[in-house]
């Protein structure tokens, strides 16, 4: 039957092949299993279908190029116009909010932490995709999974994770007399005092950023045994553990940290580190990758990358904690006729071929949300970044020990915990006042 005839009858190619294949028997019709599979590989979307994918401008530029390439490839294969828009991560929530409110906008939106849980009802249930991937590849890293779920269903597909650990200038700390990376916060304070005296303090932001500030604040508090809520959902931030954490932070800040950090954004510590202003900072692999790609030299003229070490967060009284923020892809319900195409595109992006290429071309800046990628050969390609993988499982979700629900997302988006630290660091409040302030804020947000 010709294409024209089929179109006139309103039969899709898929239907046709299925019917004919079944009716005439595989061998006889010559279409065979391959034929059916081939037909399924290129499902016919309505002609002129256009898919709009909104995601961040990656901190690792080659990854941006790769995702564009993947979008174009899938689009060509499936006769869909894939439009990928990459914007500043800080602007994603506003664009998403406007789109959801107006019932039109991008068909796939990338979210960080658990932002999308604030309007999970407006997002398509993607449990089918996410669960299928889980069974196929053997499970997600737990906090990445928790961030993509609300009330037992997946409202987004976990895609990648941006890990954060300490990045250190070996020569600076050695010159100040430190022989090995501090194991506890107290040791860090003691050693950091020496580094600061030598002109190279620790750099940490406690400003209103979506990345670095969260990545430090949450695990820092957790390592003291402090938490927003307990398992039952009661607000327990007003505990003596939190007070101890705040008091100690004041000491750590004054003794060892760069006071300018209170005004830093996500890129300031990168700049400070690369220009030799600080000795250590909590960050994702972007510092190392920039130093490597742009062949940045240190004062002596040697490549800076050779002087960089990646080490874990120091331990607090309650142990070692990290926070690595997850990135997941959601489909808003208003997509309607594009939902199938969007689902297929996401499935395809999560295929081993595409995902591992994306991560490798991104130079291991991001890790995958799937556990199996921890064994990927990518890590051997970038051995210096292996410590990121080694501590990947030591993260928790926002709102820990309570659930990462809508209200926990609000706490992250309103920088409440970060402000608690900033209050004491800048001297705006005493630790006790800041504790009371934070408790009031959390009770107000969680209690609504």
């Amino acid at each position, binding site marked *: 039957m010709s294409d024209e005839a089929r179109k006139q009858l309103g039969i899709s190619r898929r239907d046709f092949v299925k019917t004919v294949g079944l009716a005439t028997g595989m061998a006889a019709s010559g279409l065979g299993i391959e034929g059916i599979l081939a037909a399924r590989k290129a499902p016919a979307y309505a002609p002129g279908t256009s898919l709009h994918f909104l995601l961040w401008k990656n901190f690792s530029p080659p990854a941006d190029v790769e995702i564009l390439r993947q979008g174009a490839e899938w689009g060509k294969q499936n006769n869909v116009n894939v439009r990928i828009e990459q914007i500043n991560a800080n602007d994603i929530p506003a664009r998403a909010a406007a789109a959801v409110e107006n019932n039109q906008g991008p068909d796939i939106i990338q979210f960080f932490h658990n932002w999308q849980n604030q*309007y999970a009802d407006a997002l398509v249930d993607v449990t089918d995709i996410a669960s299928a991937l889980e069974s196929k590849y053997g499970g997600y890293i737990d906090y990445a999974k928790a961030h993509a779920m609300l009330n037992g269903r997946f409202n987004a597909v976990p895609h990648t994770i941006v890990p954060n650990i300490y990045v250190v200038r070996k020569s600076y700390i050695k010159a100040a007399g430190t022989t090995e990376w501090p194991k506890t916060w107290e040791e860090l304070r003691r050693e950091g005092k020496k580094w600061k005296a030598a002109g190279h303090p620790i750099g940490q932001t406690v400003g209103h950023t979506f990345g670095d500030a969260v990545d430090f604040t949450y695990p820092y508090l957790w390592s003291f045994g402090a938490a927003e809520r307990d398992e039952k959902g009661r607000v327990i931030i007003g505990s003596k553990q939190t007070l101890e954490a705040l008091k100690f932070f004041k000491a750590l800040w004054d003794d060892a940290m760069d006071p300018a950090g209170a005004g830093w954004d996500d890129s300031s510590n990168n700049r400070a580190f690369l220009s030799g202003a600080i000795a250590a900072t909590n960050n994702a692999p972007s510092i190392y990758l920039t130093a490597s790609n742009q062949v940045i030299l240190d004062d002596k003229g040697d490549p800076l990358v050779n002087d960089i070490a990646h080490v874990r967060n120091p331990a607090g009284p309650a142990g070692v904690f990290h926070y690595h923020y997850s990135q997941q892809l959601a489909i808003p319900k208003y997509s309607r006729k594009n939902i199938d195409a969007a689902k297929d595109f996401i499935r395809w992006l999560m295929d081993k071929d595409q995902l591992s290429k994306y991560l490798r071309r991104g130079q291991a800046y991001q890790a995958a949300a799937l556990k199996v990628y921890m064994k990927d050969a990518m890590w051997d390609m970038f051995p210096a970044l292996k410590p990121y993988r080694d501590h990947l499982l030591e993260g928790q979700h926002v709102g820990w020990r309570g659930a990462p629900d809508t209200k926990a997302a609000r706490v992250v988006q309103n920088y409440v915990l970060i402000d608690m630290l900033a209050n004491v660091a800048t001297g705006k409040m005493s630790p006790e006042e800041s504790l009371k302030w934070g408790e009031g804020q959390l009770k107000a947000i969680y209690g609504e």
Partner: protein
Amino acid sequence: MGEVPEHATEAVAQPRLPMAAEESDARRLVASRSGWRPRAALDLLERPVVLGYLLMLPAAFIIFSFIAYPFAWGVWMSVTNKEVGMPWSRVSFVGLRNYFYLWTKDGVFWNTVWNSFVYTGIATVVKWVLGIWLAVLLNRVVRFQRIIRAAILLPWIIPTVLSTIAFLWIFDPDFSVINWTLRRFYTWMGWGYVKGPLWLADPTLALMSVTFVNIWRGIPFYAIAFLAGLQTIDPDLYEAAAIDGARGWQRFWHVTLPGIKPITVVVIVFSIIVTFSDFQIVYVLTRGGPANSTHLFATYAYQVAMMGARLGLGAAISLFMFPVLALVIIFQVVYLRKDQR
């Protein structure tokens, strides 16, 4: 200060009284009026009421189509529990609960109020004083007048977001050109090493820094507006004052300042309203940090509504100043009407 600018009369386009040419123009209009247009319609247009409503139609259309609905939406949001993505079936009227929450339970709101008042208050006063001063200076300029006036306008012309990004670099703790200069100065004076002020990291300094950027951007508008006002002052008044023995300062105080009172009121009211709802400067430089010490109404509302997805609460923050500012506007309209009679 207070001298007569020679070219004032040229700069001010004095309306000319009708001369012979225009009178005959009117006659020609009469003569050319053809009789085929229906009389009734034309007569209708002569009535002030009809013409008035007709003329207001374009502006009214724009305002009511594109402002009334969003405005009503904003007001309605502020008295509901609406969140992003919440279907209208679940939205409920909550009265003043959002405002009450901000007033009593929110730990950042009063900070925001304080910051906004300090920001607007200081910026307005400084812009006012420096604006008048600059206007007086510009009034005396003759050589390169055009280029100097255009240059002075530059901070106001350049897109705010771009000039603020430049300031981001100027205030950057490690790369700040100000701090570098300060450091060299200290070294030259033998005073040792100084890191330099933490422009955006210290809470008080951060608020001062964003205020400074607002002042830098706003002075040209004030200066040019006052400059225009200066040129409307009758030169005879200055001569009379000089004859009476008034010196420079006294002439300024008793002739110049009162002479620009109308423009002062208008410019300041407009500036206060715009500065209270300023967004871009704080958003680019600090996002409201550190520790909420630079949040203004607009930036905090943006954070609560866009980042935190609570539209109702965000609307309440935005509208909090509404009653006060509305009164200010009404006062200004009434005051100016009074001045005319």
